[in-house]
């Protein structure tokens, strides 16, 4: 048994502490980030979502715009275990004359097997490699056109699962690109404004004040309504991205300006000036990196808003327009309570949207704590 003195000695012995100063900053950041469990989970969820998005065309069994009048509003197909592995029951369609609604009955005596790595419609993986192999598909005898609808079908009989995957390619990138753009614009203009001061600062601040005098959503709506309708899908995608960026930068510019105002009078800025550094050099090498952590946090927290904005605009019919799909376009099908009660799977795109936005919010929160690991 240890004596009291020994116990005391043990408890006084320094615990394994590290010198915080000797650990590189990024390691501290990672460590702090991993402390917030919710943020780590959110990060994994987002990584999975983006992976699904990238391989979307491979995972989607059918073209997202393939119409099928035999499958209007088919409920999500039940997967059963048949003699040849997973499969689905044969389904027959008939019209309910009273409710004027298509009804589908399963025939357990017929099982069509689900096959993996089947050849299907042509697509380009990563938009480059031409391929026609899909992860899964239904094997049906010739003459039978039944499909497997993991997430059900919409009113035109289009496969919702394929559509959600296709829509994610717009919804998950548009907001992201928009925020990257607006953060770039905002940090450059904000830094310039704070660094030069005087009339330039004044002009920029008045411009920001003007933009912020408009309520956001109506301004976005007005600008989106002014976009030409008859342009290529990709062009419209970028135009909407630019609209999101053009209005979104003002808040960040203001905050960055405030930070830079503080840095601009510090010794190291003056020293750099004295040894002949150009303004551009000082801005990009000294001021922006100093405000970087702040910029990243604001950017992260702005992404969910931008994703929601795209969805809202598309939902209102002003953003991405059919035949292109985004989650907002898919939500248009779910805007009446009658449709949602009768065909609840139409809300699946909403679930994806909520998960994505929630994850971005949680991730941004974790990053905010992590970029200041000394706090």
């Amino acid at each position, binding site marked *: 048994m240890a004596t009291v003195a020994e116990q005391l000695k043990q408890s006084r012995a320094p615990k394994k502490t590290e010198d915080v100063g000797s650990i590189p900053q990024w390691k501290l950041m990672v460590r702090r980030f991993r402390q917030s469990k919710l943020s780590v989970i959110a990060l994994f969820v987002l990584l999975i979502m983006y992976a699904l998005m990238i391989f979307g065309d491979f995972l989607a069994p059918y073209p997202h715009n393939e119409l099928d009048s035999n499958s209007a509003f088919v409920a999500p197909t039940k997967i059963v275990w048949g003699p040849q592995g997973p499969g689905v029951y044969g389904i027959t369609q008939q019209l309910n004359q009273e409710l004027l609604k298509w009804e589908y009955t399963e025939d357990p005596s017929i099982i069509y097997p689900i096959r993996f790595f089947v050849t299907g419609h042509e697509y380009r993986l990563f938009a480059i490699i031409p391929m026609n192999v899909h992860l899964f598909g239904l094997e049906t005898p010739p003459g039978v056109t039944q499909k497997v609808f993991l997430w059900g079908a919409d009113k035109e009989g289009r496969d919702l699962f394929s559509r959600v995957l296709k829509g994610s390619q717009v919804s998950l990138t548009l907001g992201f690109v928009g925020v990257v753009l607006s953060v770039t614009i905002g940090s450059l203009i904000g830094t310039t404004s704070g660094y030069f001061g005087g009339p330039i600062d004044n002009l920029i601040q008045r411009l920001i*004040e*003007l933009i912020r*005098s*408009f*309520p*956001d*959503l*109506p*301004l976005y*709506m*007005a*600008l989106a*309504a*002014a976009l*030409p309708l008859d342009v290529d899908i990709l062009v419209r995608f970028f135009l909407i991205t630019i609209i999101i960026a053009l209005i979104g930068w003002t808040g960040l510019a203001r905050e960055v300006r405030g930070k830079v105002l503080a840095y601009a009078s510090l010794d190291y800025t003056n020293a750099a000036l004295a040894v002949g550094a150009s303004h551009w050099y000082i801005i990009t090498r000294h001021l922006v990196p100093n405000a970087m952590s702040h910029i990243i946090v604001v950017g992260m927290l702005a992404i*969910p808003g931008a994703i*929601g904005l795209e*969805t*809202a605009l598309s*939902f*209102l*019919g*002003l953003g991405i327009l059919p035949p292109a799909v985004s989650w907002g376009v898919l*939500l248009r099908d*779910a*805007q*009446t*309570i009658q449709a*949602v*009660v009768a065909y609840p799977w139409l*809300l699946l795109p*909403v679930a994806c*949207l*909520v998960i994505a*936005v*929630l994850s971005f*919010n*949680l991730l941004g*929160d974790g990053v905010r704590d992590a970029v200041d690991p000394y706090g």
Partner: protein
Amino acid sequence: MLNFVLRRVVNMMVLLVVVSFVGFWIIQLPPGSILDVQMQRLRAQGGNLPESQIEALRQRYGVDDPFLVQYWKWISRSLQGDFGTSFQTDQSVAERIFNRLGISIGLSLTALLFTWLVSIPIGVYSATHRYTWPDYVITLAQFFGLSIPGFLLALVLLIVASQLWDQPIGGLFSTQFADAPWSIAKVVDFIQHIWIAVIVLAVGATAGLTRVMRANLLDVLNMQYIQTARAKGLTEAVVIWKHAVRNAIHPLVMSLGTLLPALVVGEALIAIILSMPTIGPLYLDALRSQDMYLAGTILVMLSALLLIGNLLADLLLAWVDPRVRLD
């Protein structure tokens, strides 16, 4: 103080003029005009329009005027209280807007009140009980509140309410009350119709404000004067509500300026789902059909609301916090 108010009011006036100019410019950007839309519709309905009639319509709507002339016509008439005639319905713009603006603002004020009544106590509770399980539940609920799009929440609430108890769907009144004079039954019916809208409108803002309130109060609670207050034996309730909350509430006052117009605007999506006759659907409709006087007036009016809201928030802040008055 008077100087402060005057300066802010003049600043706001100048901004409003510029805003109206830029706003009108954006609204008339799309090529073509509602006249084209109208003529297409008329042609589709019944054959050709005589050239003279088209010319008369063009004259009347001034679609061929240069931009500055259009702007001047619109703004000078607006200042006299005549906002022009909506192309679509030939109703006066003022009539169409004010009918709906009243409902929109009423709805938003109710939602605002709801937001404050809920977010302040919850924020305070969550800050004073930091890292307990109710705090975690509140935090998670906040994230959900911020993440769920309002229109989805509206749908879900509508479904739940209509399945559980006889929730009337859509509109502001049941048909039997629509034209009836105000009575208690009508008020009850009205509340039954709008409670979902109020909650849905308030949820996002409530979640945001609760977080702000929690963060601020946590900052304030670390201050020395709080320690002093505790040390001299004040009860915890007095310390929190009289000393701490009063100083933590500034951002909530400031948010008043942006919150009101945001709520007025935010109902655009929700109103479509709940089919309520408010300003949002009207604006969307005007934009789609290129009804530029109507859309322009709404846009500028909402901006004015935003600016007035900001002004009110500034004044309120100056009143709450003497330090603001100094500069």
